[in-house]
């Protein structure tokens, strides 16, 4: 069978990231500093525990009323959602705008699940209409992802949020969980829309436009689940069998890079989560700290105002900590998590490329052994050589694109984290400085009375 969608010719050149060129200035390297870690006070490193795997179960709470799938009112303006996320294409060049919002519960006899509203606005000719509104559930997103992987085995398909299942517990989806997932799904679709090749994929178009029953019937066509899984399984198996002999150097470098990157990004993800946890504990203690000073002020006269002032400062710093935590969980944590998923995706892509090449290599070996059917083999080999070349080029281009996006995302995520911390300290500084000013106004310099006889 042939996968849907255009067979990618030479892929279009990757668009430069917004706001930054590849020719950006590198910071001056201080003399004497090599790539080795700079010497300084060795930081005491706290042990990182393994995070538990999160799992989820469908909710069996039947107290929810069945919801209407289509609500005419649009609560969040799609354009405001689009502006939340930076993409490398200039807004004027984009002709496809997608939003994911409005999660709703649906209850059937068997299960309860959530659907999300997907709104598409487009000016493209191949779309019959310029606006679409459909409802999709997580399963549908999974289906789309696997179709894209099938059609473009060596392209980097964006990550989907994971299926979380609480071990053994039947848990309702929390609002926080649903919102996190919604944001991730929104990003997923938009990344596909921005991808020079994937954006024209036919299954993608059907996903965005088809009604529920149309999508169902379309899903039933095409190769089944088993065959879809088979491709990646075979790829993994072949790589386990001993790697690829004629792998071009470039892809070996990619593999080495991805192994290290994957390691590092996982550790960073853990660190960021640990910091969030410590900040939350700090916040909890601070909540109790301020009020003690207020309590104390009740038994004092002269110093009551100073005590109340300190209490108010601590409370304000407490709120500032809350903001800092929110910033972390809205920005850095999701991005690090996405790149953890990306690192798995990329390892898979590299394996699939290797697999495609090994098909070619084994056919060539077979030709060397069997003298018969030379012509037939030559034709097959020719096709396979094309396939390998296409795969390699697609991957190369997508890799470069991915690396640039990664750099951009990391830069913005960590800069944002630094900003968060800056705002926190600036706010706390202002609070304490104004307290200090209020104290020194009515404090006249006291001589050391201990000098007096």
């Amino acid at each position, binding site marked *: 069978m042939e996968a849907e969608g255009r067979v990618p010719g030479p892929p279009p050149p990757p668009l430069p990231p917004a706001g930054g060129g590849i020719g950006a200035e590198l910071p001056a390297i201080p003399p004497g500093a090599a790539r080795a870690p700079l010497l300084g006070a060795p930081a005491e490193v*706290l042990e990182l525990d393994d995070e538990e795997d999160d799992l989820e179960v469908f909710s069996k709470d039947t107290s929810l009323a069945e919801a209407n799938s289509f609500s005419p009112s649009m609560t969040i303006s799609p354009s405001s959602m689009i502006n939340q996320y930076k993409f490398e294409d200039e807004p004027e060049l984009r002709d496809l705008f997608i939003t994911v919002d409005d999660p709703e519960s649906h209850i059937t006899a068997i299960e309860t699940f959530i659907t999300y509203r997907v709104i598409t606005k487009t000016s493209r000719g191949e779309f019959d209409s310029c606006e679409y509104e459909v409802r999709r559930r997580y399963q549908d997103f999974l289906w789309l992802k696997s179709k894209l992987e099938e059609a473009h085995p060596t392209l980097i398909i964006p990550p989907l949020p994971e299926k979380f299942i609480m071990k053994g517990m039947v848990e309702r989806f929390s609002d926080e969980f649903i919102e996190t997932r919604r944001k991730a799904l929104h990003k997923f679709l938009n990344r596909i829309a921005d991808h020079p090749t994937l954006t024209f994929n036919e299954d993608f178009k059907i996903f965005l436009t088809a009604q529920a029953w149309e999508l169902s019937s379309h899903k039933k066509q095409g190769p089944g689940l088993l065959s879809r899984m088979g491709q990646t399984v075979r790829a993994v198996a072949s790589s386990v069998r001993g790697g690829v002999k004629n792998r071009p150097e470039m892809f070996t470098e990619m593999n080495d890079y991805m192994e290290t990157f994957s390691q590092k990004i996982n*550790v960073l993800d853990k660190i960021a989560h640990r910091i969030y946890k410590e900040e939350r504990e700090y916040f909890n203690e601070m909540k109790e700290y301020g009020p003690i000073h207020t309590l*104390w002020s009740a038994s004092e006269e002269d110093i009551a105002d100073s005590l109340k002032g*300190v209490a108010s400062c601590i409370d304000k710093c407490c709120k500032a900590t809350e903001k800092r935590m929110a910033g972390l969980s809205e920005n850095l944590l999701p991005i690090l998590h996405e790149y953890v998923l990306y690192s798995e995706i990329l390892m898979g892509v590299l394996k699939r490329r290797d697999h495609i090449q090994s098909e070619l290599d084994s056919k060539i070996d077979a030709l060397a052994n069997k003298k018969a059917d030379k012509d037939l083999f030559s034709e097959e080999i020719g096709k396979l050589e094309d396939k390998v070349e296409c795969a390699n080029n697609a991957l190369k281009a997508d890799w470069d694109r991915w690396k640039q996006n990664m750099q951009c995302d990391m*830069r913005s995520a960590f*800069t944002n984290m630094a900003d968060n911390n*800056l705002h926190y300290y600036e706010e706390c500084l202002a609070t304490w400085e104004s307290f200090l000013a209020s104290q020194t106004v009515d404090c006249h310099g006291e001589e050391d009375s201990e*000098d007096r006889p």
Partner: protein
Amino acid sequence: KRKINFWMKNVSKKMEITVSEAEKRTGRNAMNMQETYTAYLIETRAVESQNEGQCSPVDSLWRRYSEFELLRNYLLVTYPHIVVPPLPEKRADFVWHKLSADNMDPDFVERRRIGLENFLLRVASHPVLCQDKIFYSFLTQEGGWKEMVNETGFQLKADSRLKALNATFRVKNPDKRFTELKHYSDELQSVISHLLRVRARVADRLYGVYKVHGNYGRVFSEWSAIEKEMGDGLQSAGHHMDVYAASIDDILEEEEHYADQLKEYLFYAEALRAVCRKHELMQYDLEMAAQDLTSKKQQCEELATGTMRTFSLKGMTSKLFGQETPEQREAKIKILEEQIQEGEEQLKSKNLEGRDFVKSAWADIERFKEQKNRDLKEALISYAVMQISMCKKGIQVWTNAKECFSKM
């Protein structure tokens, strides 16, 4: 190092006092068992009042914590109307995870050294306590001081705990101000210990936040090895993360000194209560003496007039078994009259004592209140200053880090 000049009544010169060193020692205790303890070096120097520049040589001697305790106990008993400055804690309390609870831990010993110096300075700057001979000898006389203290027999003068407890429950008419002061000192103790507990927990958490950031430094460095364009930004940002993580140590050490300032007033609460207890004891004593006098006077009256106002077993038995002879009655009355006279004199002097105590105690309490308000306000201000310094350091580090990140 703070130095304090103080006047000694009988030694009219100014003195500087410091507790400059601490040293680990081993020796044998009273039960001839080997023990380890810390000895503290007390240095004193007389300063000529005219020329501050001319200083006489430094005298020094070593004292251990138990000797400080002995000194304080002596002061408590000898000056019950004074709010006697407290000693630093015997064992480390309100610790958070980094601080050792070990008495031999160098940080603890250092903070105790400062606390002991502070104690001596408090006593030396007290208008009454600074004139005490035992205190002066503590500072200047190495050998035989313990014997000197014990010879004062102060231990005998000490009120028993039981007696004091009894008085607290039974006293009918204490001065209201002392009752209020007792409540205040209870509240002060409770709120400060709560505050110190939570502060320790906050410090623990803050430590965690800072130190985990140190992990970024290590990972950024390793990651930068595989990146071409992002490498420099990552590397230098990582360095700033290390700086950030390391900065918490000094910050929290400074905060410990703030905690020690609060702790001093936590312990002062107990000193306040001691003065209140003494008042209650004296007042109770007075009430008992007055009660005794009243009952004796009544007895006397009854015997004289032959009437029985109140029930007494003696009266009953004499009614039942016959009246006494007039001579016997006369003798009894005589004895009672003597006792009554004694009692009245005693009551008068106890009254005077009580009023003097209240007057001088209250004067010292007012002095203490002013000192407390000054010190605590200063401590709160210094806390704000510390927070400001911490924020400024944070701003600097994160500004640097942000710059590195933006160049990735």
